[in-house]
């Protein structure tokens, strides 16, 4: 392993590759900060520019964009409550609350330090265990994946701040929204009302930016005073010793959870932050702090998010199978450069494999160097008067949404979801469980049907397969743990009334 790593560092530390790594990380941070403009669009646009580079350098840069975007995404989530990607939904819960309390700098700093730690561990993890861990990805068939999603949905119940019933309704709504669009098996259009732009379903960015970003703007406009309070107290810029002490354990647990889930095929990385948040909330002495600016709720999920982003490279580099859309794009980039990903990349192109792994560690260091000084700049941004800030937020959101599919109607949809999100806030419903239901819904339905087609319609397949059965048991356990206290609490409420 050490000779391999030194080979890797030899490749990654060349002047050209260092510059490319830096360029990728910088671009990634910027597009991560811009809501909606995701790594997929950026990598696709930059692909032709890499034609003239050597393959290793090109891939180092493109990978930098991907994990740089994960860093940048948390900035928008914390500052303006807009999750750029599914993985930063959880960060909005406590991160934005911290910002409102004047602790934006601490939240951003914790996110950056946690991500750096997770990135370093994940790099070592890939280097040491990449090859054996590949088997984990192959153990997961449709049945196992469906059970994993069920477990994920049970997390959503725990995510809820207030009423469990309301959270449950929101999850169901999310699942329902995820079924809009063309049926994968039959090609039938479902709930599109004959409206062609709905034929491919609702885009995550459209929904998330509507119910979070636009709705938040509406709420703030209604109530200008709270904004001024945020502006008044900025507080310290970097996390203090107490903050760090409080974050260490969540970061460790988040890194482990995110790292393992990231290896799974079919975008398992999405579950990482949710799982970490659930775990932290359950382990906390006082769970009621969560949702009101608990630093653990930022440290854990942000580490999980970054660890997952990096371990997602394992199936690609060791099996040649992309686990999510960004990795599929990396396959495209590799093929353009004449390296067709397969199980033999590690033996046939060792300088590529180990060079990329070494560059990930260097990239994480660069991201820390880029991001920590930026914290001050971002926090200063909060001092911009809101009458100037909200139009810019809306404009950047609109550009971002348009860039996803180049469809103007998507922008209109986002506006609609913005109004809907405002209604939800007014009625006391949480949008986060809905987004989790939405993200998991598509995968869940797909995997359920695949598993049932393979088993010829027998539901027993979910219980007969040991991993699947184990995951379902965990899901039931989570539900029981989550529901018991609330049932008790309700009883108390009844008595107090």
């Amino acid at each position, binding site marked *: 392993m050490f000779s391999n790593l030194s080979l890797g560092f030899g490749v990654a530390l060349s002047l050209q590759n260092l510059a490319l790594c830096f360029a990728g990380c910088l671009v990634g941070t910027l597009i991560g900060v811009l809501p909606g403009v995701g790594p997929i669009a950026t990598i*696709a646009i930059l692909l032709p520019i890499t034609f003239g580079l050597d393959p290793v350098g090109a891939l180092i840069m493109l990978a930098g964009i991907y994990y740089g975007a994960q860093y940048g995404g948390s900035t928008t989530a914390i500052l303006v409550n807009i999750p750029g990607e599914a993985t930063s939904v959880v960060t909005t819960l406590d991160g934005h609350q911290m910002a409102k309390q004047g602790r934006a700098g601490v939240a951003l700093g914790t996110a950056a330090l946690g991500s750096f730690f997770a990135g370093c561990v994940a790099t070592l993890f890939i280097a040491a265990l990449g090859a054996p861990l590949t088997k984990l990805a192959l153990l997961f*068939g449709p049945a196992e994946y469906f059970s994993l999603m069920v477990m994920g949905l049970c997390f959503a119940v725990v995510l809820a701040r207030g009423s469990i019933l309301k959270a449950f309704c929101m999850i169901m709504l999310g699942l329902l929204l995820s079924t809009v669009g063309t049926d994968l*098996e039959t*090609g039938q259009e479902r709930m599109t009302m004959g409206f062609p732009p709905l034929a*491919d379903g609702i885009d995550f960015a459209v929904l998330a930016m509507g119910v979070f970003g636009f709705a938040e703007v509406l709420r703030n406009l209604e109530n200008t005073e709270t904004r001024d309070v945020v502006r008044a107290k900025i507080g310290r810029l970097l996390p203090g010793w107490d903050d760090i002490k409080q974050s260490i354990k969540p970061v460790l647990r988040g890194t482990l959870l995110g790292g393992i889930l990231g290896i799974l095929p079919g975008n398992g990385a999405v579950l990482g932050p949710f799982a970490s948040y659930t775990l932290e909330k359950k382990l906390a002495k006082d769970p009621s702090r969560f949702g009101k600016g608990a630093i653990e709720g930022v440290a854990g999920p942000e580490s999980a998010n970054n660890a997952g982003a990096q371990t997602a490279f394992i199936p690609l580099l060791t099996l040649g199978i992309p686990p999510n859309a960004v990795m599929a794009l990396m*396959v495209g*980039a590799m093929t353009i450069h004449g390296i067709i990903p397969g199980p033999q990349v590690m033996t046939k192109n060792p300088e590529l494999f180990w060079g990329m792994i070494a560059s990930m560690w260097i990239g994480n260091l660069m991201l820390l160097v880029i991001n920590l000084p930026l914290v001050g700049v971002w926090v200063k941004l909060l001092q911009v008067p809101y009458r100037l800030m909200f139009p810019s937020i809306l404009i950047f959101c609109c550009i971002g949404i348009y860039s996803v*599919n180049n469809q103007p109607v998507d922008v209109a949809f986002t506006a609609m979801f913005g109004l809907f999100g405002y209604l939800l806030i007014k009625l006391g419903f949480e949008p986060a469980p809905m987004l989790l239901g939405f993200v998991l819904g598509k995968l869940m339905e797909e995997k359920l049907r695949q598993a049932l087609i393979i088993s010829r319609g027998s539901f027993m397949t979910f219980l007969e397969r040991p991993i699947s059965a184990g995951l379902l048991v965990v899901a039931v356990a989570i539900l029981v743990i989550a529901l018991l206290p609330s049932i008790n609490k309700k009883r108390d409420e009844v008595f107090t009334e």
Partner: protein
Amino acid sequence: MKKLAIGLAAAMTLALAGGAQAQAYPTRPITMIVPFAAGGPTDIIARIVGDHMSKTLGQQLVIENVAGAGGTTGITRAVTAAPDGYTIAMGHLGTFSAAPATYPGLKYDPINGMQTIGLAGGTPILIVARKNLEPKDLKEFVAYVKANADKVNEAHAGLGSVSWTTCTLLKGQLGVPKLNAVAYRGTGPALNDLVSGQIDFMCDQIVSVAEQVKAGTIKAYAVASAQRSPALPDVPTTTEAGLPEYQIEAWNGIAGPKGMPKEAVDRLVDALNKALNDEGTKKRLLDLGTVLPTAEERTPAGFAALIKRDADKLSPALSAAPK
């Protein structure tokens, strides 16, 4: 007064643009719609060819990914755009030959309702299976599938995809149209379950599966083309292996709206041919396992003939397929 001024300005702009167009097409960037997500096989070919075409045309060829409904959303937008030569699309076997039989409500007619430019490249289709599936060669496989039609699982990347289209043709020819088909969102996840042995076989473009075959994680029965592929020289063709009627290629080609100015068509055909003759571009395409188009297929008429030929070949099987 204001309205009049705007009208005048618009008229002048039009006149100017018209005049300029008459002088030298293109005077502004050209949009090439790719009806799939960035990074897929069609997108990669579009970006490689488009990069060189921009140099010949003297204007940037901008790739715009408009994904959706098996690629028909993007093609609909391109072929219903103003036929000025500034909006074209890179479509494939599915969107141009298979779509009419796959999507009953299709809003464009690939045979009579668009202006073809030319073929950019084709990729042979490979029949692959999990490594421990019993049959040793294609003949045994055909017999096995026919005998176990109630047990075999086939994977594809969704209705209208290349893998669905080509496998539906195979199932139609084998007389087992109702074979158990498992739909995935893309060939990546499908390949994952094929490698892990959850499903039995699939048909896919050689570039996506060749490395897995070489590593022995899956096995290949035959390549559905007239010649063996240099990417996998040991895999027999369907003709050699005893299923000569199964010949299909996943090709990608350029087309635009009907009624484009002849000058624009000529310039685009010329740019495409120069790109395909360029050594650097050629090498990139060949590295992808692409079969370069013949001189005939690089012309509008030759490409139109190819679309028609494959549409005729596919439509019986696709129309009969359970949807």
